[in-house]
Every structure is written in structure tokens, then in C-alpha cells.
């Protein structure tokens, strides 16, 4: 039984099906298919997909409530703002940007690493950083498997066979180069990379699951090269270029006799036996409102961070986290992303900004994670600095300088003057978990079925706000050297505001670890004390580094599938004894 047919669910379902198991995939949204749903002649519709969010979960079906701290009463999000949860097969993987970083080796033992480098008491009390309980050597083969499924384009710097120029020098050692070469770079990333290189940094093409050439993956599914159409993030890809479960896994998986997909079926809870030590199946509701119980030998929950955690809370799996006592694990260590940027206005440049893609661009990693010395800085973490022109679509791309009226003829003139000559440098930075940031069931607001909504309690920590100032300052140095007419630095400031879009990289809440008192799943994504239940996704991240999560979500899905098929099936039970 696999809950959710996005990246994680599709990868695991395919692994289990190939091991000979009969697998049923349950998906709350529709079956999505490039040919049927993403027609090149109609997909480039900004109003439909970006403004009206057609591919995202309908908040009338399910949403979250939010507040900044435990003293407040949370309110429901009725229109997606800060993040964009997906829906249907492929999930958020249909409308993601495609940026496919691997986390660095240090990330998987971050607390130990920082304590070792900066001292045993260097981590402030406001941060609840944890080790993952796994390491680089265990993760690397699964990253490799995911990149091969997705056809990820990029250039390696640090291969087992030796180092090579042009890639990201801070990446962990890799067995193989990327399956497809880097995408061609538009002008704004090229200008950024040239400047960064002059300043002694080492720019590299952002690793991207938008393939750069026709690619057939190990499942026999073929993708076509990205055409830089500029309708990418928030859109489905009509060119079969953006990797998602629907363009890489499901066309092969759905042909297999021992797999069945049930769409428009929303899971209500995981059922367990009387002592809660064994999952017995799931209960779901179909589009006619009928409830069904589906028994299963193994239950895999892979339904995006929010729904993973909510299902565990509603099913009574693990102890709900309490920030007052810092006890409990379900809902613990919810974290986000700290998004910063600097906008640059030029007089003499034409960036042709309509040429774009969610994951084409150049980046540097000198100010990311622990790639620089944090001694005396008063914060930990950092960000991935990059220029990734996603395509300046007509409704939203109105790059007018501050002081321009928000409507009328002056606004129109400023748009014309600045549309082609404006670019932005982003710094997508880490977000380190904190005891007061957590997920729980909302006591007030319920969904259409009467179940409590998931409540987010979150704010940026002092650590993250200091880090945001620091990394944005570094970006400003590069921006100045590019000599714009004007620039607007936007370091992230608090409090967290749920209205403007920032990032869909919501992580944690059902985290991996070595200790059942501070984590929910072991390194095989197996739930402590419920050995036939696996919960897979970014919900397992103990904190969020300055990287996009999808590469690691894919790797964890392969890791779980590998553990189930190679170890669990032979000897069902706890794979790590406590």
C-alpha cells in the first residue's frame, strides 16, 4: 500500500512491484498525464496555472492553519501563498522548478559536525539540529539512482575518478557524472558567473532535472530536451523535459500487472492492530464519498510533508510533539527555507527574460551551509547563491524600481523600460529547526470530512535572520561589481508571512534519526516500533540546508525501497533494534 503517487510514492511503488509485491497506490488527486493534461498549445497559460494555481491542491479539499508562535491562534490558509502543495499523480513534482542538488556529506551528521568544528556547546539553544542517522556512503548510490531516473543535467566536480573543473567544488564525491550535460545558459546567469569567477568564486551550472538532450531512463521512459519556454515553475511541462513521476516512472509502472493506482481517493488514516505495533492497512474515501478499508502487509506513506505528518497525528503513530516539554516526535523539527534575493536594474542590458526554465542557471556555493568558517559570526548555515531565470511571464513579471506607481501610465512605462534589463540573484538559504517550530493538529479548523487541519507553528529564528543578512551582503558585493543602475537587496526578515510565495520546501515533522525519543523513523524510513510502516519524504529531514529538497527526497525513496526489498522482505521486523 503506497499513499501518494508523487516522486517518493512512485519510486517506492516501482521498486516494490519489481520485487514481485502486489502494490496499490492511492492518490487524492487526479491521474495526470503529459499528453492529456499538458498540451504545448495551451499549457503556457499564466492566469490558469500560475495565478489560479490549477495544479495545486484545492484548499477546499485540504489546507493548513498557520501561526508564528504557540501563544497565537492559528488561522487557515485559504489561498496558497508561501508554498504550493501539489495534487494528483506526480504531485508537486509536476510544477516544481527542477533544481536537483544533493545534500553535502556534512549535512547527514550536521549536529556532530558543528560540535566537532566549533565546540561542543557552540549550537545555541534556539536550534534543535540533529544528525540523520545515515551518512554519505549510504546516500550516494541512491542519489545516483534518482539522477538516472530523472535524467538530471549538470556537471560533476568531484568524481571518484578525480576532480574536474566547471562543477560545484563543494559537492560530495560522486560515482558518476550527471546523466545529461548542463543546459545552455542564458545571458543573466552567464553575466553572473563571469563576475563571480573574476571575484575568485567557482560558478557551476545549477544541477537540473530539466534534461538537456533526449534521454531514456533505466525504466525505458524517454524525455525530450528543455526548450527554455519560460513556463516551468508552477506549470506542467509539455515538452517531456521536466522530470516528475509522470514523465519518468508512472508510464512504465502503470503497465505492470501487479500495480494498481486508485486516484481521487483520499486516505483518512493508517489502521493499526490493538497494541499499535503493526499497521494493518489504510482507510480512504473515494470521490463518491464512500469509505473503504484496504488491508496491507506493508504501508508506505509518501504524501508530501504536510499530509505525512497529519496522517501520523490522526493515526496516533508516535507521540505528538509538545514544545513546552520538548517531548514527543510526531510534528517535531518542522523547518522551511530562508529565501533572499538582490534585484538588479540595468540601463544597457537585454536579458531576453522570457527565455527561461525553472532550473537553468549558474550558482556558487561559497556561502552555503558550512562551506565557510562560521567562527564568530553568531549563526550557522548559509545559502545557495544563483541566477536562475525562470521565464518572465506577462502578468507577474513587472520589474519596476521602488517608487514606481502600482498602476497607470507611469507603471506601464516603467515596465517597458525595465522588463528586458532587469535580473535577480537569489540566495536560497538554510532553515535550521527550532523547538518552537513544529506541526500539530489544529484545535479549531476542520476539513470537509470533519478532520482537524494541520497547524504550522513557525517563525524564522535569530540564527536564520542573521544568516540572511550575512549572505545577502555577500550577494550585494557580487551585484555591485556587475555595475547595475540600481539594486534592491531583499534579505529575509521576520516574522514569517504566509502570503507572498517564498518556497515550497517544507520539511521535517516526522524525522529520521538514531534515537526513537527524538526521531520518528530510522535511517530506512521505517517507523520506530511499527516496522511495517514507512513514512517517506522531506518530512524526514531533521533540518533544511541551503539546497532544494527534491534530490534528497528521491534518494530517500530509493533508500527505503532498497531496504524493504533487500532486507525487510527477507526478515520482516525492525531493521534497527532499539
Amino acid at each position, binding site marked *: 500500500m503506497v499513499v501518494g503517487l508523487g516522486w517518493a510514492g512512485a519510486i517506492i511503488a516501482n521498486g516494490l512491484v519489481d520485487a514481485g509485491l502486489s502494490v496499490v497506490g492511492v492518490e487524492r488527486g487526479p491521474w495526470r498525464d503529459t499528453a492529456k493534461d499538458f498540451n504545448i498549445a495551451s499549457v503556457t497559460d499564466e492566469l490558469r496555472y500560475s495565478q489560479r494555481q490549477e495544479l495545486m491542491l484545492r484548499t477546499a479539499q485540504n489546507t493548513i492553519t498557520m501561526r508564528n508562535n504557540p501563544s497565537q491562534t492559528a488561522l487557515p490558509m485559504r489561498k496558497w501563498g508561501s508554498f504550493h502543495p501539489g495534487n494528483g499523480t506526480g504531485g508537486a513534482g509536476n510544477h516544481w522548478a527542477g533544481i536537483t542538488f544533493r545534500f553535502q556529506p556534512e549535512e547527514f551528521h550536521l549536529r556532530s559536525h558543528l560540535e566537532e568544528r566549533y565546540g561542543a556547546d557552540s549550537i545555541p539553544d534556539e536550534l534543535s539540529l540533529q544528525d540523520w542517522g545515515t551518512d554519505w556512503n549510504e546516500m550516494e548510490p541512491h542519489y545516483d539512482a534518482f539522477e538516472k531516473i530523472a535524467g538530471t543535467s549538470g556537471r560533476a566536480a568531484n568524481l571518484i575518478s578525480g576532480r574536474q573543473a566547471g562543477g560545484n567544488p563543494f559537492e560530495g564525491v560522486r560515482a558518476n557524472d550527471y546523466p545529461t550535460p548542463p543546459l545552455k545558459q542564458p545571458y543573466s546567469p552567464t553575466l553572473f558567473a563571469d563576475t563571480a569567477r573574476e571575484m575568485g568564486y567557482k560558478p557551476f551550472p545549477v544541477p537540473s532535472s530539466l534534461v538537456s538532450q533526449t534521454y531514456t531512463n533505466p525504466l525505458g521512459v*524517454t524525455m*525530450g530536451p528543455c*526548450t527554455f519556454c519560460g513556463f516551468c515553475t508552477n506549470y506542467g511541462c509539455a515538452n517531456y523535459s521536466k522530470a516528475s513521476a509522470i514523465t519518468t516512472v508512472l508510464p*512504465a509502472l502503470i*503497465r505492470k500487472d501487479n500495480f494498481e493506482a486508485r486516484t481521487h481517493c483520499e486516505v483518512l488514516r493508517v489502521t493499526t492492530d490493538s497494541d499499535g505495533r503493526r499497521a494493518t492497512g489504510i482507510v480512504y474515501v473515494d470521490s463518491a464519498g464512500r469509505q473503504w478499508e484496504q488491508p496491507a502487509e506493508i504501508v508506505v506513506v509518501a504524501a508530501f510533508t504536510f499530509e505525512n505528518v497529519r496522517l501520523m497525528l490522526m493515526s496516533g503513530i508516535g507521540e505528538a510533539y509538545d514544545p513546552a516539554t520538548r517531548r514527543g516526535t510526531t510534528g517535531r523539527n518542522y523547518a522551511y527555507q530562508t529565501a533572499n534575493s538582490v534585484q538588479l536594474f540595468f540601463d544597457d542590458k537585454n536579458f531576453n527574460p522570457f527565455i527561461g526554465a525553472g532550473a537553468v542557471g549558474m550558482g556558487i556555493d561559497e556561502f552555503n551551509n558550512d562551506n565557510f568558517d562560521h567562527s564568530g559570526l553568531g549563526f550557522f548555515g548559509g545559502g545557495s547563491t544563483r541566477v536562475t531565470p525562470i521565464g518572465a511571464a506577462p502578468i507577474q513579471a513587472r520589474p519596476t524600481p521602488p517608487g514606481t506607481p502600482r498602476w497607470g501610465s507611469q507603471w506601464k512605462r516603467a515596465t517597458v523600460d525595465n522588463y528586458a534589463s532587469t535580473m535577480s540573484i537569489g540566495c536560497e538559504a538554510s532553515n535550521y529547526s527550532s523547538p518552537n517550530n513544529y506541526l500539530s493538529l489544529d484545535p479549531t479548523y476542520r476539513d470537509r470530512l470533519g478532520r482537524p487541519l494541520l497547524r504550522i507553528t513557525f517563525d524564522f529564528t535569530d540564527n536564520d535572520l542573521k544568516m540572511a543578512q550575512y549572505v545577502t551582503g555577500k550577494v550585494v558585493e557580487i551585484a555591485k561589481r556587475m555595475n547595475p543602475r540600481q539594486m534592491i537587496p531583499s534579505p529575509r526578515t521576520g516574522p514569517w508571512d504566509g502570503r507572498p510565495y517564498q518556497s515550497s520546501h517544507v520539511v521535517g515533522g516526522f524525522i529520521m534519526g538514531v534515537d526513537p525519543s527524538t526521531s520518528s523513523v530510522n535511517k530506512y524510513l521505517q517507523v520506530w516500533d511499527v516496522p511495517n510502516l514507512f513514512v517517506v519524504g522531506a518530512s524526514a529531514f531533521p533540518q533544511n540546508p541551503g539546497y532544494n529538497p527534491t534530490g534528497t527526497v528521491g534518494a530517500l525513496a530509493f533508500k527505503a525501497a532498497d531496504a524493504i526489498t533487500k532486507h525487510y522482505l527477507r526478515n520482516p521486523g525492525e531493521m534497527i533494534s532499539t
Partner: protein
Amino acid sequence: MKTLIGFTLLSLAGTALTAQAASTEYQDIEHGRYLSVLGDCAACHTANEEQPLAGGVSLETPFGTLVAPNITPDAETGLGNWTFEDFKGTMTEGIGKGGYHLYPAMPYPAYTLMRDEDLRDLWAYLRTVSPVNHDVEANQLPFPFNIRLAMMGWNWLNFDDRDFQPDPDRPDDINRGAYLVEGLDHCGTCHTPRNFMGGDGDGKFTGAIVDDWLAPNITPDPHKGIGGWSEDELVEYLKTGGNRFDFASGPMADEVRHSSQYWTDDDLHAVARYLLTGAGIDETASSADAPEPLAQSNAQVQAGSKIYFDRCAGCHKTDGSGENGMFPQLAENPLINNDNASSLIRVVLAGSRAVDTDAKPTAPAMPAFGWDLSDDQIANVVTFVRNSWGNAAPTVSAGDVAEMRKALQGE
């Protein structure tokens, strides 16, 4: 002595029983199953995947509708009471049990070439499929075509009751290819133009219209036929559903999905060699010289090129080279050079989806453009494609597009 005779009789009886049983051994039934795949019986006789061969697929002919019958061994509604001789009469003479005449939508003019041993194996297999009680009214033709006896005259004019004669001067694989192409695979049923009676017309394998699709020219003509395809490319097309020039769509998608993706490599190569050598066709039917393309200054070509670069080049590339495995190459593509542009017009108007096979599960789609391109615009872009990058073919008019649009809206 008496004992000995008894023993001998018993032995003979045993031998006879063994001999009879041998005809329904595993390998014969399995061979029969493979023959049913080669002949793609399911294309017409399986309307419901849950009830294989229980009939029910409607065939639209210029004369009216025929529905393929139930060929499962159900006694009441299928072939349960048929003998092998009844079956053979159907397959080789178009005469069903009791003497009624079949309509040649059942390709008995091709199946008549089948060898007796193959017919026996196919029959042995058909006896093993699950009987399904499903009554099908096969003949839904209007008067006077519903008079089956008329087929006697049709047969006299159009049907040649013959056996397959291998050509001793040809290699075995070409003979095998001929046996398959002309017989069980019945390629000509779609790819050879029909005469006014619906029989084989002139220009064998030069293409014909089926369900508003062009079943293209499969002669070795290098310009309009498949002479520019290598043997491996033709095998790739039949086995996986696509090659760099084309993906199977329309009725050919069904053929690949149910039939040729399952053919043995030997049979695929035999068919490819037979077709590419042109052994089965009259040489004079092929045009040796490619026509000249329209001048790039032609008004339709000029207008069409603008549409092409705006709407088509993202996938098919500015030089028409496409992306192998995803977006067909348009340059030097024989399918584009057919005199009849029906399929091209159709896929631009209504879109099309490639067949999905185990080898190529992606099944990419050509999107529909009929909703936002006018008849004029489509006529121009198709004319441009038909006269660019080594292609050369007659112009397409807005009227041609309007006609197809009307036909599709009626579907």
C-alpha cells in the same frame, strides 16, 4: 497368437491416439496463439479486453457497418459447433459454416495463403480460449449490400483462391516475409488502395485512407515510400511503435500494440526485408525520381514557415530533425511526401498519441492545433513542411483542411 494380435491392435490404436493428441500439444497451441498475434485477430474480434475474441468491433466500410463476430468456442454465439473444415473454409474461401459468404472485411483474400498446418494450429488455439456467450449481429449493411450472396460475384472479380508458393530463387527469409506480409499480416488490407468494390486496386502497397488516416506507402520508393528506412529502422518501428521518422498512431497503433510488438525478431526482419526489397510489387509502380519541391518564395511556403518556427520548431527543431524517440523527424520523411496529406492534416488539427509499448512506454503526443489555427494556417504550415528539408509534395489547400475538420467533427 490371439494375444499378440490384440497387442498389435492396441499398439496401433495407441499410436493413432498419440498422433491425434499431438495436434493439440502445447507447442501447436502456442504456435497457434502466435499465429493469432501475427494475424492480429484481436484487432477486430476483441472489443472488450475482458472477453478476448468475443467479437463486437465495428468496422466502418464505404458500404456500411460490419461487426466482427464472436470467435470463441461458445456453442450458441461463437464457433463452438464448428469443425476445422468450417474454419478452413472461412479462412481460405470466405465461406462460413453452412455456406454463407463472408464480407472481405475479414481478410480471407490474404488468409487464403495460409498453410494447412498453420490453419490447424490456429484452430487448435482458438479451441482453447474461454468461451464467451456474446451474440454479435455481424451484418449491419444497408440494402443491397446486406445480401451476402452478392459476394459470389465479388469473389469472382476480386478473390484469387490460391496457396502460398515460395519462390525457389529467393532466400528463405524473403519467402517467409512474403508469406507473412501477403498472408496472415494482411498488410495490403490497409496499405493497398481499394477499387470501387472494396477489393485490391492498382498500386499495391502505395497507401490508402483508413478511418481518415493515411495508411502510408510501404513500397521501397525512396521519396514517398519507406525506401529511405533501413531494415533495422523498419523493425524498430514494428517492434517498439516508433523510429526516428514516425510513431505508430491511429489504426497502426492498434496493430503495433496487439500484434507486431510481439512478433519474433526473425519474423520482423523477414517482413522488413520483403517489404524493402519490393519483391512483392510491380517495379513500375514506384516513381524513381523525386519531384521538385515548391520554391521557398511560394506564398504558402512563406506563410507556413512563420507558423512552423512559432508553433512547431520547439519540438521538431528548426531544421526538421526532431528528437529521436520523442518528436518525429520531419526532414526527408517519406510519410510527409505522400501525395495524400490526410494524416498530416489530421494530426495538426486533432493531435495524436503515439502507441505505448513495453519497449517504448512513453507514448508522447502531438498536441491538437485545430482549436487555434485556421484552415488557411494549417494548409500553409503543412505545405511548408511538405516542401522543406528534402521533402517535396503537392500543396495542401484550406479546403482540404476544412474537409478533414468536418470529417473529424463527425467522428
